[in-house]
């Protein structure tokens, strides 16, 4: 078990405008899972992902990441958790526009105090793995959306996270590039990476080993699909 939530609630606002984005979510993600969170827009998928990503705090309930309760950690410790244990992939790629591909991938390693040489070596390795060996010196503006997302994936892997979180990673990409990103994520999963991905593309949800449906802030149904059974 990598991460587990117990009776997770998130309430935005107060009084008349109060919104319960999460209403008692119990979710367990095991090592090696490739889990897709699916559900209608506004059902709370992103909210849940941000909680798992230690970016936001629940109103109620607890989150255990590798045996540690996130609610008991201070801000500095949460920052360290995000840096060392989690890798986040954004829908809008979120690369630093003034840094080239290599520097973007090196960034989390530098934050972690890894030496420049080591960081560079590893970043080159990761960029090679995502198929961007020839683009290491390109700025984000000089790359396509698909290439940028691959840089972002390499960046998410920089500090060897225990869990990769992706919020609609293909939401801004055409089908061809979506396909490449999806293959890449599947490859990572095959090598043992644990991934939680939000998507509302049902085709993508077909290709993971666990699908969790969400509705109105609750997990509506847990379904294991065939691939999971094969790989299990």
């Amino acid at each position, binding site marked *: 078990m990598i991460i587990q939530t117990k009776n997770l609630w998130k309430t935005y606002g107060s009084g008349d405008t109060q919104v319960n984005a999460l209403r008692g979510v119990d979710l367990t993600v095991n090592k090696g899972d490739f889990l897709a969170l699916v559900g209608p827009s506004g059902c709370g998928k*992103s909210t849940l992902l*941000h909680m798992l*990503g230690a*970016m*936001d705090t629940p109103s109620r309930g607890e989150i255990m990441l590798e045996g540690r309760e996130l609610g008991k950690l201070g*801000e*500095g410790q949460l*920052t*360290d958790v*995000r*840096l*060392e244990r*989690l890798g*986040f992939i*954004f829908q*809008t790629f*979120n690369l*630093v*526009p*003034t*840094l080239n591909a290599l*520097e973007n991938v090196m*960034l*989390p390693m530098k*934050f*972690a105090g890894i030496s420049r040489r080591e960081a560079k070596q590893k970043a080159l390795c990761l960029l090679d793995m995502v198929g961007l060996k020839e683009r290491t010196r390109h700025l984000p503006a000089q790359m396509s959306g698909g290439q940028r997302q691959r840089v972002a994936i390499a*960046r*998410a892997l920089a*500090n060897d996270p225990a869990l990769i979180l992706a*919020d609609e990673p293909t939401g801004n990409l055409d089908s061809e590039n979506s396909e490449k990103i999806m293959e890449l994520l599947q490859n990572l999963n095959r090598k043992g990476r644990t991934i939680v991905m939000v998507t509302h593309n049902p085709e993508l949800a077909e290709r993971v080993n666990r699908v969790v449906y969400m509705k109105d802030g609750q997990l509506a149904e847990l379904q294991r699909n065939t691939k999971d059974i094969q790989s299990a």
Partner: protein
Amino acid sequence: MIELAIKNIWGRKTRSVLTIMGVIVAMQLYIILSTIMGSYEKDVQKQISNMAGRVIVQLKTESGASFLPGSNVIKESDAKEVMGLQGVDNERSTPVLIQAIVPSKVPNAPPTVMAAGIEKGKEEAYFGNVEVDGESKISKSSDVILGAGAKEFYKAKLGDSITVRDDKFTVVGILPEINSQIDASVVMNLATAQEIFVRPSLVSSVMLTATQVDKVVELAKKVTELNPKLTASTSESMKKSADEMLEGQRRFFAMINNTVVAVAAFIVMIVMVMAVFERRKEIGTLKAIGASRAKILGIIVTESLTLSLIGGVMALPISVLLIRLVFGGWLFDTSQWGQTIAVAVGLGIFAGLWPAWSAQRVNPLESLRYE
């Protein structure tokens, strides 16, 4: 962090160039003002220390003794009378007539080159007992001894001939650097100076040396008792009035300098506040991927510091060139450079603090904002 700061500065060239230009404009003004004030102060100190054991007699004006030599005249007969006082070492005292040849480009400063008419044989009473290249006395009325600065101005060597007010003079002696007044002097006979500048029987001041060093103040008192229209300054009284004058000037320069530095700090701060505002999503992303508050703080302060430092460093050579263009001299002071760099560093850090503070507070969820 320095790398990210430089990349950010480089990645936003127009904004960065304009900011750095603003810092340069402010910092070169700071350097020029400080350099002028510094060299002026040093010179006043030198002049005063040169005066130990001496009394300078000038016409009394409302503002007391003037630091600008040659701004007033007294009768030569009054000068003679003063020199006859008891306690005056007549051999080492002389009436002096100062007349500007090339006025200074800096307002209220001594002339760049000036004639100093000295009683025949008393030259050393004017410039002191220094090692002169060539003659230390002027025997012919067509001879002159040049101060170090005057020599530079005329580009003259011993035996060369120079022209002052249509009259030709031969350079018979060259002085080492002493102080700005003597450096600027073309030392000639008093009678010659009176003739070519049409100041018949007039002098600017009398330089008295007391027979006994500890009787200087007493001698000064005697002078004013003898002739109340005159004022007599000793090195102590000069020091006092110099300090008063310098204090006012220091305050004035400090006010302008502080304003200039504050303006530069504001420029950098505004640019950095805008940079942080523009980059909220980027900063949120950095936090989302694990950058600590301290890292964000460091990134922004480093960027601000880098902008300010580039401006400050570039302002140094520019200020030297500007001083050269406007005032015509290579005036620079390396200790001043260190101070300028220190000011640029302080300015950069100070200007970066507030934007950095607001940046480190950005929520990681800002990374998810749509733009």
